[in-house]
C-alpha cells in the first residue's frame, strides 16, 4: 500500500516559498500566473492503521500552527479545472532522497511500525491562463530538472521499485578488437579512454592471455581518468611559445606539475610545510599541538547539469579531503568561488541544453549553503566571477580547511588491515562521475550522464565526521581516505597501491537492491570513507559508529600480494596487478602551443563624466556586493570568526580576507583569501598567474597578515587540453605560477585541475577561458592586531602604497566600454614582496587603521568601498598617486588595475612613524577622511572629477545582486 500525504501552509498564512516562486515566474517574463500553491508530498509505503496514519500526519508531518494536511488516494490523477495546472514533481528512482531516512526515524519514534519506505515530492498548482508553451517553459526553467526529477504520472509504485540483480560475469572481448572496435568499447562503456590507453590495456591482457571483465576495464578507466591521475599535468608535454616579436621558445616538459608548482615548494623548503602534494590535502604547521590542512576542489560538470546537487556534493566532497588527510582533520572552514554567466543573460540566446545562469547561481548557492550550514562549517571566503564564457560551463570551486593534531597527520596501511567502509550506503548515484568529468558537455549530457549527478545528505556526513574523529583520537585505525571520484575503485585502489587488496563487493551495504558488482565498485555515492583497521580494534571501532547510528562494514582486507582482487558472492570479478593499474598508463607526449595574441589597445578620449563611470563599475556584476550570497552562509558557526566577510559600520562592506581562530582559547589565527581573474588570462595567462597570486597575498596583508607563513593552492580550470592551444596557455600559466610564488616566497601545498570544460553545440566547441584560482592561507600570531577596510575617523590621512601603471588590459573599465585591450597588469614579485613586508610591519605596529587592496575597478572602486563601508567621505588628490603613466589621464589613474597596491588610513599623529616604516616604498599621500559623506576626487590638473555621496555609491554597489 502506498499512502500519499499532502502538507501545505494554511491559506491565510504567509508562505515565503510561494511568494518566491511567484517572483521567479515573473522573472521569466510570464505575468499570467495569478496564484501558485506549493505542497509537500510524502509517499509512505507499508501497512498502518488509519489511526496511526493520522498520528503520523498530526504529530510528525504537520506544524499545528502553520500547516494543514490531506491524505489522498490517487494524488497524481487530480483533475485540473480550467485555468488550473496541477503537477507533482518527484525524484527519479535511484536519486537519493535526503528526507527518507529522517522521516522513517520520526515515524519509528512515534512507536509506529509498518512503514518500510518513504519518498517525497513537491506538488505545484498554478492558476491563470497559460499556453502549453508557457507552462513547459516554467516547468523546464524552474520546477523540474530532468536530470534528477520527473513529473509524476499515474503510477507511484515505480518510484520505490528496483529490480533484483542476478549475478552474471561479463567479459569484454578486447583481444580480438581492432582500433575501431577498441574505440567503440571505450565510447559505449563511457570509459573516456583514448586510443593509446585502450591499446595499452589490450597489450596487458594479451600478456596475461585472457579478456578483461567489465569491472576490470572500469577500474582501469577510473584509475587512469584525468580526475584521478592528472595525466595531462603530470605527463610529457612538448611546449612551443611564440611571442609577438617572433621569438620562439621550445621546451620539453616531463611533468609540468613537478617542474613548476611542486618545484616552488621544493626550492623554498619551508620547515612549516608538513605534508605537501602527498595526501588528500596540503598540511602546514599551526601551533605546538595542531596542523592545518587545506584543499580546494571543483565540481563543474555536475553543477552545470544539476546546480543544487552538483554544488552540494561538491562541498560535501571537499570536506572529505581534510577528513581523509593523515588520520582525519576536523573541518573548520569552507571557501567557495564560482564563475557564472551573467544573471541577466537573455533566455533566447541560451545554447540548447544549458540552464539559465540565474538558475545555476541560485541552485549552486543553495547547494553550498545547505551542505556547509548543516555540517556546521563556516563558509568564510569566496569570490564570484560573471562572464558570458561560463554560460555552458559554470565553474564551482569548493575548499575546506581542517585542523588536525600533529601526531595524527600521517597514515600508513599495514597488510592484514581490514578494509572498513563507513558512512552512507551505496546506490546507483554518481556512476561514471570521474570519467564523465573528462568529457565535453553537449546537449545530450543531461540524458546520458544523468547518473553521474548526485544529491548529498549532509547529516549522514556530519554523523560520520563526529564519530570518525572519536575513533581517530582513540587510535583505532591506521589509515583513512575518502570515496570521491571513482568511488571504492579509487579509494581502495589508492590505499592498496603498495600492498594489494581484496574486497567482497556483496558486503557493501546498498541503498536498494539491483546494483551489479561493477556498479557497486564504481558508484560515487556520497558520504563514505574507507578505513584500514587492525583486526584487534575492530569491535571497539564498530561500537563507536553504532552508538551514533553510523553504518560501518568490513568489506575486505589489505593484502601483501600487490594485486587488486574483487569478489562478488565468492566469484572473482576482478584481478589486476597494482603495478599495471597505477603505473601502466602509456607515456603520451602532448603538444602545447602558446601564441601571444596582440589585442588592440583602444584609443578614446577621457570621458567627461567620471561619476557615472565609477557608479557603473560599482554596479558591474564582478565588482558589486555579493551580500545576497554571503548572508545565506553561516560564516560564524564554531565561534571562531574574527574578521568576517562583511564588515564596516553597517556590517555590509567587502572584507579583503577572512580571519578565524581555530582554537577559541588561543589568540592565534589563520587568514584565508583567494585571487582569480580570467580576463587577464585571455591576454596572457602568465600574468594572470601573477595577478592571482598577488591578489591573494594582498588580501592577506590588508587584514593584518604577513607573508611569513603563507601557503597557496592552485586550481586550474581549462578547456580541452588535448588541443595544443588550450594546453599551451595552461603551461604558460604554470610558468607564471612558478616565478611569482618563488619570488614571493610562498609555497604551493596542494592543487587540482579540471580540464575539458568545453561545451559543444553541433560541431562547434566553446571553451571557458583558462581560469586559475589561487587560494591562500596564512598563520597570524595574534588576531587582535587585525584590521578592516572601512574608514574609521574623519581627518585621518589616506595614502596609496604601490605604483600605478597604465595597465587597463582586461580591466573592468575597458570591459564597461566594450574593450579588452592588451596592457594586462604585470607583477614585480621581488619589489612586491618588499612592499608587502613593509606594509605588514606597519599594520602590526598599529600604524594603520584601515587597509584595502586595489583590484577590479582600481583606485576608484577601492576608495568608494572604504568610504561607504565606514560611513565617511574622503577628499582625494590623484596628482599624488605614484604613477608611471606618460600620457596622464585621470580615468587611467583611477581605473588602472596595476597589482601590489593598497589604500590605507593613518592617524595624523602616526604620519612620521608610518612613513618611516615604509621608507623606500612608493607612497603617495592622497588626502584625508572628511567629515561629510562625500567622496571627492580631484584630477591631476586639480579639478574635481568625482563628487558623489556615499549613499549613492553604496546603492550602486548593492543593487545589482539583490535577488
Amino acid at each position, binding site marked *: 500500500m502506498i499512502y500519499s500525504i499532502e502538507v501545505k501552509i494554511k491559506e491565510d498564512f*504567509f*508562505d*515565503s*516559498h510561494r*511568494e518566491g516562486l511567484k517572483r521567479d515566474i515573473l522573472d521569466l517574463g510570464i505575468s499570467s500566473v495569478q496564484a501558485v500553491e506549493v505542497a509537500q508530498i510524502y509517499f509512505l509505503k507499508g501497512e498502518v492503521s488509519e489511526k496511526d496514519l493520522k498520528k503520523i500526519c498530526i*504529530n*510528525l508531518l504537520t*506544524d*499545528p*500552527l*502553520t500547516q494543514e494536511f490531506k491524505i489522498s488516494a490517487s494524488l497524481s490523477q487530480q483533475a485540473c479545472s480550467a485555468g488550473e495546472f496541477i503537477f507533482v514533481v518527484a525524484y527519479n528512482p535511484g536519486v537519493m532522497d*535526503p*528526507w527518507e531516512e*529522517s*522521516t522513517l*526515524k*520520526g515515524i519509528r*519514534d*512515534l*512507536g509506529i511500525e509498518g512503514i518500510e519506505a518513504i519518498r517525497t515530492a513537491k506538488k505545484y498548482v498554478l492558476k491563470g491562463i497559460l499556453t502549453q508553451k508557457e507552462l513547459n517553459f516554467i516547468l523546464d526553467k524552474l520546477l523540474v530538472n530532468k536530470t534528477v526529477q520527473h513529473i509524476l504520472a499515474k503510477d507511484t509504485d515505480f518510484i520505490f521499485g528496483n529490480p533484483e540483480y542476478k549475478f552474471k560475469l561479463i567479459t569484454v572481448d578486447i583481444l580480438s578488437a581492432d582500433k575501431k572496435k577498441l574505440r567503440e568499447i571505450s565510447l559505449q562503456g563511457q570509459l573516456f579512454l583514448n586510443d593509446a590507453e585502450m591499446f595499452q590495456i589490450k597489450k596487458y591482457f594479451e600478456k596475461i592471455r585472457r579478456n578483461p571483465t567489465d569491472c576490470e576495464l572500469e577500474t582501469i578507466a577510473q584509475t587512469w581518468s584525468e580526475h584521478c591521475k592528472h595525466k595531462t599535468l603530470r605527463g610529457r608535454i612538448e611546449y612551443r611559445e611564440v611571442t609577438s616579436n617572433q621569438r620562439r621558445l621550445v621546451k620539453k616538459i616531463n611533468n609540468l606539475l613537478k617542474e613548476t608548482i611542486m618545484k616552488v615548494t621544493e626550492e623554498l623548503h619551508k620547515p612549516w610545510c608538513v605534508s605537501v602534494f602527498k595526501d588528500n590535502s596540503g598540511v602546514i604547521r599551526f601551533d605546538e599541538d595542531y596542523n592545518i590542512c587545506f584543499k580546494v576542489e571543483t565540481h563543474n560538470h555536475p553543477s552545470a547539469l544539476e546546480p543544487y546537487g552538483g554544488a552540494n556534493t561538491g562541498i560535501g566532497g571537499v570536506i572529505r579531503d581534510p577528513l581523509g588527510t593523515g588520520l582525519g582533520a576536523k573541518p573548520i572552514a569552507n571557501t567557495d568561488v564560482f564563475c557564472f554567466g551573467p544573471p541577466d543573460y537573455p533566455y533566447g540566446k541560451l545554447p540548447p541544453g544549458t540552464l539559465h545562469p540565474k538558475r545555476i547561481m541560485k541552485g549552486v548557492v543553495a547547494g553550498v549553503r545547505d551542505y556547509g*550550514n*548543516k*555540517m*556546521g562549517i563556516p563558509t568564510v571566503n569566496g569570490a564570484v566571477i560573471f562572464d558570458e564564457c561560463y554560460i555552458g560551463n559554470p565553474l564551482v570551486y569548493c575548499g575546506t580547511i581542517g585542523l588536525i593534531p600533529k601526531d595524527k597527520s600521517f597514515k600508513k596501511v599495514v597488510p592484514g588491515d581490514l578494509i572498513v567502509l563507513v558512512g552512507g550506503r551505496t546506490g546507483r548515484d554518481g556512476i561514471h562521475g570521474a570519467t564523465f568529468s573528462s568529457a565535453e558537455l553537449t546537449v545530450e549530457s543531461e540524458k546520458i550522464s544523468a547518473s553521474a549527478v548526485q544529491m548529498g*545528505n*549532509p*547529516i549522514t556526513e*556530519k*554523523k560520520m565526521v*563526529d564519530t570518525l574523529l572519536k575513533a581517530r583520537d582513540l587510535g583505532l585505525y591506521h589509515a583513512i581516505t575518502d570515496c570521491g571520484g571513482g568511488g571504492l575503485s579509487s579509494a581502495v585502489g589508492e590505499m592498496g597501491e603498495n600492498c594489494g587488496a581484496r574486497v567482497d563487493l556483496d558486503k557493501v551495504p546498498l541503498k536498494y537492491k539491483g546494483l551489479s558488482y561493477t556498479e557497486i565498485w564504481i558508484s560515487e555515492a556520497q558520504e563514505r570513507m574507507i578505513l584500514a583497521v587492525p583486526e584487534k580494534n575492530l569491535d571497539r571501532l564498530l561500537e563507536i559508529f553504532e*552508538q*551514533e*547510528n553510523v553504518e560501518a562494514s568490513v568489506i575486505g582486507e589489505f593484502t601483501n600480494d600487490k594485486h587488486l582482487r574483487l569478489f562478488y558472492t565468492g566469484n572473482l570479478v576482478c584481478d589486476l596487478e597494482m603495478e599495471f593499474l597505477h603505473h601502466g598508463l602509456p607515456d603520451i607526449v602532448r603538444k602545447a602551443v602558446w601564441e601571444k595574441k596582440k589585442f588592440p589597445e583602444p584609443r578614446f578620449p577621457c570621458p567627461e563624466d567620471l561619476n557615472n563611470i565609477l557608479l557603473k563599475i560599482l554596479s558591474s556584476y564582478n565588482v558589486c556586493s555579493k551580500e545576497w550570497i554571503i*548572508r*545565506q552562509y*553561516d*560564516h*560564524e*558557526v*564554531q*565561534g571562531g*570568526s*574574527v*574578521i568576517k566577510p*562583511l*564588515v*564596516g*559600520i553597517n*556590517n555590509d562592506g567587502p572584507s579583503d580576507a577572512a580571519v578565524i*581562530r581555530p582554537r*577559541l*582559547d588561543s589568540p592565534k589565527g589563520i587568514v584565508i583569501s583567494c585571487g582569480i581573474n580570467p580576463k587577464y588570462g585571455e591576454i596572457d595567462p602568465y600574468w594572470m598567474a601573477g595577478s592571482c597570486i598577488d591578489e591573494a597575498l594582498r588580501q592577506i596583508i590588508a587584514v593584518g597578515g604577513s607573508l611569513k607563513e603563507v601557503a597557496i593552492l592552485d586550481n586550474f580550470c581549462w578547456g580541452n587540453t588535448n588541443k595544443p592551444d588550450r594546453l599551451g596557455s595552461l603551461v604558460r600559466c604554470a610558468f607564471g605560477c612558478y616565478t611569482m610564488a618563488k619570488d614571493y616566497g610562498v609555497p604551493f601545498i596542494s592543487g587540482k585541475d579540471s580540464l575539458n570544460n568545453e561545451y559543444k553545440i553541433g560541431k562547434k566547441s566553446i571553451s571557458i577561458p583558462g581560469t586559475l584560482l589561487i587560494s591562500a592561507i596564512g598563520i597570524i600570531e595574534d*588576531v*587582535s592586531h*587585525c*584590521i*578592516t577596510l*572601512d574608514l*574609521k575617523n574623519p581627518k585621518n590621512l589616506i595614502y596609496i602604497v604601490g605604483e600605478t601603471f597604465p595597465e587597463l588590459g582586461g580591466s573592468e573599465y575597458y570591459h564597461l566600454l566594450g574593450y579588452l585591450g592588451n596592457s594586462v597588469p604585470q607583477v614585480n614579485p621581488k619589489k612586491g614582496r618588499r612592499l608587502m613586508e613593509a606594509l605588514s610591519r606597519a599594520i602590526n605596529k598599529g600604524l594603520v587603521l584601515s587597509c584595502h587592496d586595489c583590484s577590479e575597478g582600481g583606485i576608484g572602486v577601492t576608495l568608494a568601498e572604504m568610504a561607504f563601508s*565606514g560611513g565617511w567621505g574622503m577628499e582625494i588628490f590623484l596628482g599624488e598617486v605614484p604613477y608611471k603613466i606618460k600620457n596622464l589621464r585621470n580615468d587611467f589613474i583611477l581605473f588602472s588595475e596595476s597589482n601590489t597596491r593598497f589604500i590605507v588610513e593613518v592617524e595624523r599623529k602616526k604620519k612620521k612613524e608610518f612613513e618611516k616604516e615604509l621608507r623606500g616604498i612608493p607612497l603617495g599621500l592622497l588626502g584625508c577622511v572628511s567629515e561629510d559623506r562625500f567622496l571627492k576626487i580631484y584630477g591631476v590638473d586639480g579639478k574635481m572629477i568625482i563628487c558623489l555621496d556615499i549613499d549613492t555609491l553604496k546603492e550602486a554597489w548593492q543593487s545589482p545582486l539583490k535577488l
Partner: protein
Amino acid sequence: MRKPKVIVLRTAGTNCDGETAFAFERVGARTELVHINQIIRKEKSLLEYDILAIPGGFTYGDDISAGKILANELKYILREELESFLREKRPIIGICNGFQVLVKAGILPGNGFKQKVTLTYNDSGKFEDRWVYLRTPEHQSTSAPVKCIWTKNLPEIIELPVAHGEGKFVADKEVIEELKKNGQIVFQYVDREGNLAGYPYNPNGSLESIAGICDETGLILGLMPHPERHIDYLQHPRWVRERHFGKGDGLKIFRNGVEYVKKNL
C-alpha cells in the same frame, strides 16, 4: 564550591555543541557533550546534570521541519526523564535549533508537552546570518516583569548574531497576550536605538519581534540568536572599529545560568 554540571545534548546534525560547551566552561561550569542515544540507552541520565543545554544545528537535517524529529524524541521517548528534570527546577536553555526543539516538543512556552507556538520559515524565504540588536527583559515594553533566571542584569540592548532559515516566531493573539501578561517574552529584535523595527532588524518577520521566550517559572529559556557566538569581543563584527575590548554580551547569559545553580541547587 562544586562546579555546576551542564549536559550539552547532541544528536545527528547538532553543530554548535563545541562552542556552547566552551561558553559554559568560561563561566565556571563543567560540561559534557552527550549523544541522545546515550540517554535513550540509559548509559547516562539527564538527572546527572544541573543544566540542560540544547545547542544549535540542524538536527536530523531539519527534515520535515526544523527541530521536529528531536522534539518528538524528547516528547515521546524521554518525557519522563525530562519531567523529573523540570520538577527539580533545573534550568534549560535552547539556542536556535534548540529553541525550535523546545517549542515543538511543547516545553516552551508552557510545559505539558503540547505545542502552542511555532518557529517557521523566515519571511525572506532563506537562511540568513546577520547580527541583531535585542532588547532585554528588564527593559521590555511588555507589561509584566520578566523573571527569567538566564537574563538578569543585562544591558538594555545586547548584540548577538542570528543564523537560521526557520526563526519566525508565530503564535495566536491570545497566546501572545498570555506571554506578555506572564512576562515570558524575553528578547525582542530592535533597531540600534532600541525601537521595534522591520527587516532586517527583525530578521525573520517574527510576530511582536519575538526573539526569545521563557517558561512561566523563568527556568527554561529559548532564543533564536546565538549567545555562544558572542562571548568575547573578537567575535563582534565591528570590534576593529569600536574597540570595546572585553567580554561579549552573550557570556552573561551563561553566567546567569551557572550562578543560579550555584545559589539554588
